[in-house]
């Protein structure tokens, strides 16, 4: 830009000009300094992969209820979750590693959420945000409400609060990243849905009637809250 610059770059290639003199310090970080002159590191592949996974996570753009408003605030200006390498919401579950479950899960939605979760590629991680996803929260006694996300999908981190503040969500996600980087949060493999033979339900007329109605290709969820409490 200035004349001084032009003077020094006259006899150099573009690459040299960018790098400056001497050692290649394109990666001019503390890490690079720590490596010294050697550009190689020796580590276990698993450790490396864990570190990579924790450092770059794609979230699923997934809103359910009140908590999704705070989640949006966490993604947007001021809190800016992207600073922590975990803030680009993907609209398709097939492109996401992490699902934040932000809100009350009711009977009609639970199978759909399970479907979305199943569509995510492994390894996948679940952050359950808010009291509703921990236990049903203020709606726990509702006839239509699931007592927590864990009844449907396995959760790695629970963030209580109604709703949790954005700071809490950032902290929860940072904790998840830490666990992933340390290899403490193992990817969960969940069996795809199976038609449950209505388990321990008494085979009365109603159950039989429902069982007849349902195709074997169907996903079936059974809710029996009396026992889940």
């Amino acid at each position, binding site marked *: 830009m200035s004349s001084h610059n032009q003077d020094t770059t006259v006899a150099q290639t573009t690459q040299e000009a960018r790098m400056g003199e001497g050692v290649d310090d394109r990666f001019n970080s503390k890490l690079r300094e720590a490596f010294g002159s050697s550009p190689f590191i020796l580590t276990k592949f698993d450790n490396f992969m864990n570190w990579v996974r924790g450092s770059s996570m794609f979230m699923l753009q*997934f809103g359910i209820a009140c908590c999704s408003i705070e989640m949006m605030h966490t993604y947007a200006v001021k809190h800016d979750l992207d600073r922590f390498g975990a803030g680009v919401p993907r609209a398709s579950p097939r492109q996401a590693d992490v699902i934040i479950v932000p809100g009350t899960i009711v009977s009609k939605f*639970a199978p759909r959420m399970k479907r979305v979760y199943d569509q995510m590629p492994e390894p996948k991680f679940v952050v359950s945000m808010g009291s509703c996803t921990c236990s049903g929260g203020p709606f726990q006694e509702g006839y239509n409400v699931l007592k927590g996300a864990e009844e449907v999908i396995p959760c790695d981190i629970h963030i209580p609060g109604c709703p949790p*503040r954005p700071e809490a969500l950032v902290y929860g996600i940072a904790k998840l990243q830490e666990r992933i980087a340390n290899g403490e949060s193992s990817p969960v493999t969940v069996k795809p849905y199976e038609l449950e033979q209505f388990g321990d339900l008494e085979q009365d007329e109603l159950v039989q009637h429902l069982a007849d109605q349902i195709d074997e290709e169907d*996903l079936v969820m059974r*809710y029996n809250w009396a026992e889940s409490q």
Partner: protein
Amino acid sequence: MSLEAPEPATQADVGVTDDGLDYDTLEALLGDVVIDRETHLNAEAFVVQPDRVVDALSVLKNKAGFDHLSCVTAQEYEDRYESIYHLKKFDDPTQEVSVVVPTSVHDPTSQSAESVFRTADWHEREAYDLVGIEYDDHPDLRRILLPETWQGHPLRLDADQEQPQVVPLREHANPLQEDHPGGSDTMFLNIGPHHPATHGVLHLKTTLNGEQVADVESDIGYLHRCEEQMCQQGTYRHQIMPYPDRWDYISAGMLNEWAYARTAEDLADIEVPEYAQVIRTMSAELCRIASHLLALGTFALDIYGDFTAIFMYSIRDREVVQDILEDLTGQRLMFNYFRLGGVAWDLPEPREQFFEKTRDFLDELPSRLEEYHNLVTGNEVLQMRSVDTGVIEPEVAKNYGCTGPVARGSGIDYDLRRDDPYGYYEELDWDVVTEDGCDNFSRLLVRLREVEESGKIIDQCLNLLEEWPEDERTIQSNVPRTIKPDPDTEIYRAVEGAKGELGIYIRSDGTDKPGRFKIRSPCFSNLQSLPEMAEGEFIPDLIAALGSLDIVLGEVDR
């Protein structure tokens, strides 16, 4: 473009006197349809035989001018089922009348009101779903909130809340399998329930003809979290107030709390000190600003399809509002700040700092709004997408019970803050905003201009609060520890929420908990009008129309 001839003024004024409505004249007008009369706290109610519902409602609508079916409440008593149709006038919502339709326990069937008021469609489906009343001649009577395989009706007296339920989801169901059924060239498309454009968990079953929407059907109930049951389990004094925050959760908490506070205070005859009314008015308008800003941000998100500057700008301004509200209430989103008879606590100390912070926001507001107008409403791309799309004519909107910015965007001059005054609105200087475009753009414009009006209201409230004498700052009146209204007192009251008319019906049963608690959600009625806006339009316009309706699923499904 309505071709309906305007009704002569004399017809709409049947029974109107200077002292309010003369219900005897109305009863005479209805003639032998009425078999009994009840007195509710908000209005008189005419009891009608289950097979004369259409007669009664069409007389009241066409001859007496009750053109707004605000709500349909269904409930079960020991000896009967009851549907209550709460009617109002769009011209003057203080003129109310209810139509009560009792049906027997053994055969809870009554006539559907759908042929008179289009909005009754969804309301009656909900009544069928939750209480189990059947409506004859209803075009499409099936469950609306609960899964179709649900057994029983949860708000019945003998409902078993812990009965196991089975909810199926067809695996590998091909959303396009209805492609070209029987030689037609339409295509079926699922939008949602998990989709960025549906503003939550809404499922739109869309049939496309080319790129045009041939048919759209909303499938709701993915966030039906039993709000009415929760309120029926709570005591009036403290346990209900946290729930309204969670109906319309887009920072509109105070507006919802006010709906409950107003209804319960009228029910239990509780006075609210003037000082508390000013604080309520101010905080409610702050909530309205926050809510409209999110509506703006997500509408832009729908139009442009990305987290662009507009979304970030509106979130940035919401953060400022939320900071102010947090100073006031201690919470960012779920305020729980109102109490029956006042508010929880006074303004935060030091007061000067709070005033300064709020004033800073208000001073900044005009320039922010100008920026939004430059960025959004003045933008040619957005105008092309939203002007003259999603059109809903005023008469159609009224028939669907649309209220709030949706109605005002269609030129219906209806705002409960002015027409059915509560709080401190009457004493303040502000205007009701209407636009005549009836399209997506008008609804957006109404919201932006309402933000401006809310700013005016807050400014006046701040002046009042600042000058309020220190020894008269009563934030709560004396309210008994336990509130037990007289048994069988019934009341329906509404306030102007962020999305429109938010009403609550309460029937007391002599205990400290409500016998029936019914929520009239503005989004529920507004969403019902989506097919009117979207059918025949292109599919991106369907998305824009949905965005401009500004629904929040917590309130639609309750």
